[in-house]
């Protein structure tokens, strides 16, 4: 199973963190710091996989954001890359040519999308259309006077 997913920028700023196992806050911070260091130190010619503690790390860089997943020994790294890619596609469809700023200013939406795509680290639905439709419908349920607009940038 996927243990956690992190999104962070080249400067080491965390943009999203989703943990699928119960971990103490202090430990989370430590792991994030450590892992960011390790991944940011990787050179472009290196593979997208590395061993870290007892986990396998699968990461990919999209523009200025690193998408980083920790999976277990028996998990398939190559398909994890596809999972990451699917998440990026969902974000892209939702925000329309997504960029890091979208994720910064609409982080809660990024979480909503992720939570509609994965539960407990596993894929809920393999259909892009289905996931996006669910988000759309849920967005419509949001009460009018809450001032959380669909897409707001700088």
């Amino acid at each position, binding site marked *: 199973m996927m243990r956690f997913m992190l999104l962070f920028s080249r400067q080491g700023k965390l943009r999203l963190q989703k943990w699928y196992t119960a971990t103490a806050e202090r430990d989370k911070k430590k792991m994030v710091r450590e892992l960011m260091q390790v991944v940011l130190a990787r050179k472009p010619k290196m593979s997208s*996989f590395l061993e870290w503690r007892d986990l396998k790390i699968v990461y990919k860089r999209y523009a200025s954001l690193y998408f980083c997943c920790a999976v277990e020994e028996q998990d398939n790294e190559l398909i994890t890359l596809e999972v990451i890619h699917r998440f990026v596609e969902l974000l892209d469809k939702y925000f329309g040519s997504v960029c890091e700023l979208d994720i910064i200013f609409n982080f809660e939406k990024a979480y909503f999308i992720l939570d509609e795509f994965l539960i407990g680290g596993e894929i809920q*639905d393999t259909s892009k259309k289905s996931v996006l439709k669910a988000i759309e*419908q849920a967005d419509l349920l949001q009460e009018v006077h809450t001032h959380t607009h669909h897409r707001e940038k700088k």
Partner: protein
Amino acid sequence: MPAPIRLRELIRTIRTARTQAEEREMIQKECAAIRSSFREEDNTYRCRNVAKLLYMHMLGYPAHFGQLECLKLIASQKFTDKRIGYLGAMLLLDERQDVHLLMTNCIKNDLNHSTQYVQGLALCTLGCMGSSEMCRDLAGEVEKLLKTSNSYLRKKAALCAVHVIRKVPELMEMFLPATKNLLSEKNHGVLHTSVVLLTEMCERSPDMLLHFRKLVPQLVRILKNLIMSGYSPEHDVSGISDPFLQVRILRLLRILGRSDDDSSEAMNDILAQVATNTETSKNVGNAILYETVLTIMDIKSESGLRVLAINILGRFLLNNDKNIRYVALTSLLKTVQTDHNAVQRHRSTIVDCLKDLDVSIKRRAMELSFALVNGNNIRGMMKELLYFLDSCDPEFKADCASGVFLAAEKYAPSKRWHIDTIMRVLTTAGSYVRDDSVPNLIQLITNSVEMHAYTVQRLYKALLDDISQQPLVQVSSWCIGEYGDLLVSGQCEEEEPIQVTEDEVLDVLEGLLVSNLSTPVTRGYSLTAIMKLSTRFSSVNRIKKVVSIYGSSIDVELQQRAVEYNALFKKYDHMRPALLERMPIMEKTASNGPTEIMQTNGETEPSVPDTKHLPLVTQPANQANDLLDLLGGNDVMPVIQTTLPTKPASAGGELLDLLGDLSLTGGPTVVPAPAPSVPVSQPPFLLDGLSSQPLFNDTSAAIPPMTAYSKNGLKIEFTFERANPNPNIAVITIHATNTTEADMTEFVFQAAVPKTFQLQLLSPSSNIVPALNQGSVTQVIRVLNPQKQQLRMRVKLTYTHKGSPVQDLAEVNNFPPQSWQ
């Protein structure tokens, strides 16, 4: 009170901060405002405030004061509130705090909500962070939803069930009925999550596995449809239909087919089909192939299929994509043991990967290369590996060097090749070889009798070039000390003999003594080598001088050695030739310490001839240890032997005198270990039935002895020694003594250790513990402790005392930390 600022506004503001301090100030100000707003129980803006808090939490600031507010949001009727509330719960609450249990009721209500998106929120939250208590309370609700016809909810319920099972495995049973027709669903979301659920259940329970084996045909059918069906836009990824589902099905098939011939046969065809038909141009196709290969290798597939799988991996190795190469190497490493020949075919590609730029790929290629070395390819492979050793990063050198030594030992085509290879390693990666290589190499060299001249010559030449690499220097000094006479005699069959004088050799050795590059251990080696040459060279006076100079060395180790060597010159000169004689051929020990330890948990070793051999075989190392204990050092250097197999009787007699004044009763026994060929009929105090009894226990690396058991007059003391070369092995000698007035006969000592340890019990000295401390029974225990865990032992003692049998069990927990650290 003005309306709290909006989330986006806050984000914008915080991002304008130019320094960390400025940011902190803004955050503190906003947090204060949020706190007072919370205190006022403001319903309207609670959602906005929590959202802002979540943003600040992501920046690393504390947000615990928002936890209860999340709960209030979850309880609200507004969807927007619930959405943020559940998100906040997932980010801020954790199962360690009791607060999270307050969610349980809300979740329960929301699981039954009329709006499926609310139900979805509840299922998602429970499925991501539900604690065991919450899972227990809500499992029933999840089970209900698992049976719904609403596929939106059913898929979420399935993953929620997976989480519940992970947290509370005993609840697995209750989900069984609901799984009945999960696979008949058309909806891919439900199919995918169902396969995940089935996988989880099968992995955790052998009964479930048996039960679900019957699903194999259905799974095969689903997979076949995916492959054969035409283009399906909804699930297509680069021309492949729902790769995620394909991969999950393949994984479930793997679990179901493992160790079951029928299931494996049923999936044979589909696996072959997937393996041959999947498009390999993109990562997604390769992901499926990868999973297929893993499945083929794990189930009971026919050999043709296995070869197909390995060939896929071989093709992967040639792929431009380094990720693909990486997984290929990982998989090959797993299969190299079972399908050795098939993997051999790809050897050259694997060896090429040694030159890859990626560190992980290089490491795997190295491990795989060592696994593939055999008698046929040793020369070629070693060439590549030595080249790799030359040019690789320091982090690889130690492992590579060890690997080369191991491979050379197993498959060396000739002794000369072996020694040349060792030389090459020592000269190119000399500072990275492991400490235990030095004694292993010395043993190897000793045993290659016909190569002595060649070896010492080559080592001497290497020393002339470079004295910085300590292992090389140590091995060289040792050899020069042993075979210096061959060196100056100018005899060498293997290559052109060099002309070197005794003085030149002594110059080199003395140079080592004074050089700043030499470590204290190395200095010890060279001093001893110089001493040995006193019986091989004629320039004894020079040697005497050197030795006496070091008698006042600041280095205590050197000083002690020099003083004792001096004593040899002065008082025991007649013994010197015998003591400094050539080393006998050492019997081969296993090259890795752990392999000699046999699992003998709780049973005493029967006195089988085999076990007698085993301790004998480790003699020379122990003898060396003993001597070093005498000298206070702990490197393995067989310097002076107190017992020699071929010693003349007179020298032997005086040796006994030398040791005669040492007490031999009770406490740490100081009986010298018998030499390999000493007959058993020797005087009792030499043998004492202990084949590997260390000589001077009490000076061994200062691990204090301990009383392990003391009851009813029976006292058992443990004394310790570290086994060289493997520091993970603790050698414990038990000494059983009896203070009562009657002997304890038929005494049997048994020991058991926890699972992570391994134990070997050697034969006891006798099974009578004499009364009134008139003697002791000793027995040697070897404990392998690779994880360096705290040593614990349970002992069982049985004996007959005054006619009645006595049995006792005890725990030994008071091991000194040095014995296991």
